[in-house]
């Protein structure tokens, strides 16, 4: 019956998590706990979930700050209406400027508590006035006064005053302990948070800190003893908590919006929604199939029946509406995730995969056995186009009917150390050093890991077990003998993973018909025109709030650009109609010529493709799923490839698994397979299998995972499953728990992968143009993409004020023209002005250009140095342009034309290269390595000559580093992609060599490498590196590489 607890979701005002408070309350024998976080219900959802587990009631409420005359005011919800009113008020306080008179809002159904901390100056007169104000607006029976007992001087006096006031005004007085942490030991963190809040160090905080550590959660007996002189007040507290316990977040009143009749604008009834969905599905199917097969018909009937029975028709209609809007705006979109298992989703255009043809399991998406809402994620082109869809949702459900889900940003090792060392008075340089030390060993040393790693998510947080914390702190400059070393360690561990602030989820949106602000308070997001909920996606899922993920995908944006250019050039492409068995596309995949494509362009993917030799669509889905940390850690990659190439016999973990694992040659690669394995071997029900699925994708705690694994073990043991089989199944689940990939998801991605590869083969100019226009994305820099384009017969022309558009454009099938967007520092307005002025009339001279466009001096230099002014007849070269454009011409009738003397020397090719890299990050000229090779007399291998060398041959090779990788699964070895003028060479650097040459590897852009050739499976040459040195390339080129992602 604690009424005024604050959790760490009060952000720097509470030191324990809501879960910890609730668990502790249950341990101490409380029957309820009211969480009154600061200005919101941030922690209430978690407290509610935990309270359900431990069997107590979680009362919701909040503490409002600086409202009217109150310094802070605690309000508890007595009913759902009260909760909704308070939620609306909180939204107004967060989203509207100058909302102070909160009494103008409807606060019925709530109970206000005036505490000794409610007023800055709690004198008798002030307390009386404040209590009267509350009584006037909330009415008798909805206001209480609270007494505190924190063993402080003067408390008795205030308590007596409050009791007298209560008697005088006939207001109940309640006893409370107002805890801000669960255990006494948490006081350290509470003090630390006070310092962070007040921007002080612990030494300077003085009396801002609590005078003692008594604000921990106490048992009802202890509270009773503390308030021995106030038995009635203790009783009142009990009564009030019982009164407020009637409402809990179970009765939130959230309802997923219904679809509106497009003709009348009225909300459809459930039945109408079902009929309308059936109509839409029928129309969709008629477009996709000339004649519906028996199998399809049965499937669609089954799915529609399930959807109708579950009452999800409205949900499908709303998602359909979003997709329809996007398509009407010419925005590419595609559903991903388990939605691809549904024929209905396929029929209404949400996904592009025919699940019947692909043999996908509908029950993975939706089942009558479980009541959870379907999860549909839709990919949109990242950037403005996705934002337009998001804004459409905001407008459609306005006002306050839609919001992004929150993302709780927590203290990570580096931020935890930085903040805690700061409040302990350590200089910032120590935190900087710790950050550096933390950053470099991000990849953990696998040899140090215990042999049998538990199925624990926390194993994979960098900085927890990976780093030897004490050693790292010592290396940062604080010796263990330092008197503040221990406090720092304690605070570090205490604050780690505590919430720091709320961010917004990358794409999760929640919406509601009649205002979302009555369901959960909303607050403005950092991005303009966006609001965010106070709960994250897991909280929403726990409370049955449905979210739709509107995700951004760079490749979709690039493909959309490419398709638009194709259409403009009279060679339109309909992605839905491109042949799925195009040999040239599969040839490209087989030879791993996949730079720039979706999902298969990484070094590891490119190494596997020649072994995999994909020749059909499903192979691409397997390829995408197999090169992921899950299968790699689970050691599933080699068995699959060996079986595929016939080197290994196909076997099944258990004979019963054959139908499930046949398509993947006996190797469990997909999440669906693992679920079905659990159903077969352990007799899991659909609900249990769904629980397993949730646990595998639930990143918040290990508890769910451990619980379900334990149940799985028990059930397998009951069925006398062989111990070895048990262990293999558990190991497979362990791999998927971290990076599991559903089959439907892989197939959805494979569609985009195939489309991107098809475009690269058949529309290379448009494909590269789309990629260049949508950077940053993917693995490779623009320069590498341009080099790759060159190797595929597509050359790029430099930026020119005479010809360039704002974005890069296609001139013909073999030629691109860089756009002004590639010039770092050229304002968008200037670029637009150039294009606009040029469209009016061509520039007659440089002076004409400068007078009409009026670029500023920096932009003039930029354009001249990049060679964008070279097309003017009077300009001889870039430096000539620099000299002439430095001065703005005078628009004078009598001005004499400037002399045509050459003042500055022409740039050398090397200088042009340096300038291009500095200003654009890429060059349309020769590769830097060509210049270097011309100056040298060394007999070096090239990326092409590697293919002609025998295995084991010693060699020396040089090039530009375009990618450095040291994945966690690689046991400390490093992989580098080295680009030269002919292509890309792959380097493998063993762990020992990496450590020996770490400085050179991490700091130099051009490397000269010694090693020996290894011809791996699939005839892929890799250089096994034995020594490295920096390459003496003249000038310090500003190159971009994809490093350690």
């Amino acid at each position, binding site marked *: 019956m604690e009424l005024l607890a604050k959790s760490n979701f009060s952000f720097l005002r509470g030191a324990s998590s809501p879960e910890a408070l609730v668990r502790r309350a249950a341990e101490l024998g409380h029957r309820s706990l009211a969480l009154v976080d600061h200005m919101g219900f941030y922690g209430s959802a978690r407290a509610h979930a935990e309270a359900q587990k431990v069997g107590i009631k979680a009362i919701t409420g909040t503490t409002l700050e600086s409202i009217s005359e109150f310094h802070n005011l605690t309000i508890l919800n007595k009913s759902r209406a009260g909760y909704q009113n308070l939620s609306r008020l909180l939204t107004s306080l967060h989203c509207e400027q100058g909302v102070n008179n909160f009494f103008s809002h409807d606060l019925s159904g709530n109970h206000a508590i005036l505490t000794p901390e409610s007023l800055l100056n709690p004198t008798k007169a002030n307390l009386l006035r404040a209590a009267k104000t509350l009584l006037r607006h909330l009415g008798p029976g909805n206001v209480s006064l609270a007494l505190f007992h924190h063993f402080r001087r003067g408390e008795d006096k205030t308590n007596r005053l409050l009791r007298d006031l209560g008697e005088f005004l006939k207001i109940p007085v309640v006893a409370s302990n107002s805890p801000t942490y669960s255990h006494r030991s948490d006081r350290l963190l509470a003090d630390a948070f006070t310092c962070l809040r007040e921007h002080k160090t612990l030494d300077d905080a003085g009396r801002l800190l609590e005078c003692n550590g008594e604000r921990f959660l106490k048992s009802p007996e202890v509270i009773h003893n503390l308030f021995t002189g106030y038995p009635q007040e203790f009783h009142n507290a009990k009564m009030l908590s019982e009164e407020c316990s009637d409402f809990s977040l179970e009765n939130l009143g959230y309802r997923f919006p219904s679809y509106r009749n497009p003709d009348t604008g009225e909300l459809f009834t459930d039945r109408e929604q079902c009929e309308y969905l059936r109509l839409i599905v029928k129309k969709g199917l008629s477009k996709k199939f000339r004649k519906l097969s028996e199998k399809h018909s049965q499937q669609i009937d089954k799915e529609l029946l399930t959807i109708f029975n579950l009452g999800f028709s409205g949900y499908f209609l709303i998602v359909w509406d979003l997709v329809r809007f996007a398509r009407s705006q010419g925005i590419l979109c595609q559903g991903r995730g388990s939605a691809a298992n549904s024929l209905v989703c396929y029929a209404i255009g949400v996904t592009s995969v025919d699940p019947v043809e692909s043999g996908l399991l509908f029950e993975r998406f939706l089942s009558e056995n479980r009541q959870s809402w379907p999860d549909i994620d839709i990919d949109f082109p990242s950037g403005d186009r996705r934002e337009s869809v998001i804004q459409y949702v905001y407008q459609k459900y306005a006002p306050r009917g839609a919001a992004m889900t929150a993302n709780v940003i927590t203290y990570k090792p580096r931020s935890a150390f930085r903040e805690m060392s700061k409040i302990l008075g350590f200089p910032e340089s120590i935190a*900087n050093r710790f950050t550096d030390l933390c950053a470099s060993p991000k990849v953990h040393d696998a040899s140090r890991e215990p042999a049998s790693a538990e199925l624990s998510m926390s194993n994979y947080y960098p900085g927890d077990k990976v780093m030897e914390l004490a050693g790292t702190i010592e290396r940062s400059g604080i010796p263990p003998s330092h008197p*503040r070393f221990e406090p720092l360690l304690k605070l570090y561990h205490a604050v780690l993973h505590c919430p720091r602030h709320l961010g917004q989820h990358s794409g999760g949106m929640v919406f509601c018909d009649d205002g979302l602000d009555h369901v959960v308070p909303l607050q403005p997001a950092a991005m303009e025109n966006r609001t965010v909920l106070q709960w994250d996606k897991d909280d929403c899922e726990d409370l049955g709030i449905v979210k739709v993920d509107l995700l951004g995908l760079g490749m979709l944006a690039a493909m959309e650009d490419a398709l638009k250019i194709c259409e403009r050039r009279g060679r339109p492409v309909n992605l839905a109609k491109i042949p799925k068995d195009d040999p040239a596309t599969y040839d490209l995949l087989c030879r791993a010529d996949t730079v720039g494509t979706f999902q298969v362009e990484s070094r590891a993917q490119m190494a596997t493709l020649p072994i995999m030799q994909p020749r059909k669509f499903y192979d691409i889905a397997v390829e995408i799923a197999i090169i992921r940390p899950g299968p790699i850690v689970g050691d599933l990659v080699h068995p699959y490839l060996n079986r595929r190439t016939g080197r290994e016999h196909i076997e099944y973990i258990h004979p019963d698994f054959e139908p499930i694992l046949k398509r993947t040659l006996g190797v469990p690669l997909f999440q669906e397979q693992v679920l079905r394995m659990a159903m077969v071997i352990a007799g899991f029900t659909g609900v249990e299998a769904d629980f397993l699925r949730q646990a595998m994708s639930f990143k918040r705690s290990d508890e769910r995972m451990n619980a379900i694994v334990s149940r799985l073990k028990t059930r397998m043991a009951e069925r006398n499953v062989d111990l070895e089989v048990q262990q293999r199944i558990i190991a497979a689940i362990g791999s998927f728990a971290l990076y599991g990939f559903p089959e439907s998801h892989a197939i959805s991605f494979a569609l985009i992968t195939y489309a991107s590869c098809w475009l690269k083969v058949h529309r290379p100019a448009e494909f590269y143009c789309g990629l260049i226009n949508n950077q940053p994305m993917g693995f490779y820099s623009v320069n590498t993409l341009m080099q790759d384009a060159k190797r595929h017969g597509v050359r790029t022309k430099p930026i020119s004020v005479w010809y360039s558009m704002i974005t890069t454009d296609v001139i013909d099938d073999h030629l691109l023209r860089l756009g002004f967007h590639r010039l770092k520092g050229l304002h968008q307005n200037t670029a637009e002005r150039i294009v606009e002025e040029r469209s009016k009339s061509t520039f007659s001279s440089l002076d004409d250009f400068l007078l009409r466009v009026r670029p500023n001096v920096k932009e003039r230099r930029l354009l001249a140095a990049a060679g964008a002014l070279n097309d003017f007849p009077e300009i001889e070269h870039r430096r000539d342009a620099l000299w002439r454009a430095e001065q703005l011409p005078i628009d004078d009738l009598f001005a004499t034309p400037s002399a045509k003397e050459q003042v500055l020397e022409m740039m050398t090719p090397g200088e042009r290269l340096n300038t291009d890299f500095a200003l654009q990050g890429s060059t349309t000229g020769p590769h830097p390595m060509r210049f270097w090779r011309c100056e040298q007399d060394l007999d070096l291998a090239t990326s092409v000559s590697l293919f002609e060398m025998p295995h084991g041959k010693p060699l020396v090779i040089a090039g530009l580093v375009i990618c450095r990788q040291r994945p966690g699964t690689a046991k400390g070895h490093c992989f580098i992609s080295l680009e030269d003028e002919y292509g890309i060479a792959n380097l493998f650097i063993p762990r020992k060599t990496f450590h020996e040459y770490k400085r050179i590897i*991490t700091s130099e852009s051009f490397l000269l490498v010694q090693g020996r050739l290894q011809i791996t499976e699939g005839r892929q040459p890799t250089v096994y590196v034995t020594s490295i040195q920096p390459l003496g390339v003249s000038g310090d080129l500003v190159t971009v590489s994809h490093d350690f992602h």
Partner: protein
Amino acid sequence: MNYAALHFHDLPLSCLLARDGTSPDQPAALLSTGEREKSHLVAVNLAARQLGIHPGLRTTRGLARCADLLLLDPDPATEKSAQAETLAFVETLVPDFELTTAETFLLDLSTMLMASVNDWTAQTIASASYLVLPLQIGLGSTPDLAHLASLCPHQPNPLSLNLADLALAKTFPLPHAHVLQLWGLQTLTDLAKLPRQGLAERLGSELAQLHDIAHGKRHRLLKLYRAKAHYRVTHSFEPPVDSHEPLLFMAKRLLQTLCNRLNHHQRATAELLLTLAFENGAAHARKLILSEPTLSPDVLLRSLHTHLDLVKAPAPMGGFHLELIPTLPRHAQHQLFQRGLKDPNEFADTLRRLSAIVGPGRLGIPHQLDSHRPDAIALSPITPDFQTPPVPEIHPVSHLPLKRQRPPIPINVASEKRGRYQYPLALLTGPHQGPIRKTRGPFPLSGSWWENGWKEAQWDIELDDSLLIQLSFLPPKKWNLTGIYG
């Protein structure tokens, strides 16, 4: 050639290499101050340059290019000593010269008698060899050209100077360096070739000035260097003395001389450095800080006398050294409503005497600390205006006055443990004894858990004789009487 410039290249680095006797073949670099991991190289020697290491490079990159690169942290003391040596060397060459930078000296050769400039240059380089510092002599028709010539290593042609090196020299204005770089200008020659008017129109007058310098069209006068005046004196006693009187007698005379010299240079002193040398080799050095700058030998002598009274000589005194640190005299006058000390130095003298009596750290103005800890106080130094740090207001919760016991009186108390706290029952010892009639508390207080944490629980009690007392319990079992109410 009327002017010569002597430039000691990269003095902060080369003086360190000279100090350590590092081989010229060893690649070496001087680090920027700050953290080593994030530092960059501010100077490199020739051996490092040949490996592609140049100033401005990140340290990690420098090490990547040469794992044996000797990294040196700046050492201001060595640098200062090297500067003093170079200065002393130049003073042996000419009486008048300009100290242009800490590394460069400009000499006017027109006043010197010499057979040949080249001979003089060679002779100067030879005579400077004892410094073991790289010296470049630049000759020019103007001071600036000579200076520029001295900055060019191995090629004393002012126009061959690299513009990047010129930007590092910071002695000549080089605005728009990045534009010049874009224009492809490498050396001063390249700049000099540009049309002056076109250059001025595009990049302004500062570069036009540099253009003039390069063409020898700009002449200026040297700012002659004058050694800094010192106000120090050393005296030896023969034979050594046993008392202060001879010292004070000599000091009076010497201080008079020093003060006259100060007065001549319109300076006063606020600090007096005293070093006593004893016969047994021991020394006593002390800086005496005066409250107000003065020119009065009497004030200085009085401070000296006071201090000497406190010094216990371990052996007879063989000599002493006095130095007055010059400062500007104070010209302020007291304001009408400002209450100040008439003679701050006398007040300071009194404080010094008091400090000698009560011991160091025991004299000051007490002020309460912002802490929950009872009686947490600190002493702030006494200044002539008697200002103390601001203390946040404290609002006592009780209207009853409390007469605090300082220090608290340790007493024995009969008590019993209830829950987490000891409850007092009767006072057994101390000024007030007897059973406790009524208690209020405990009021636990704790803090500073991050360093030497403290903890106590306060109690207000009423004895049988109605006396109200404040007790404090310090775990594990110490009781104090901390005050009496009323």
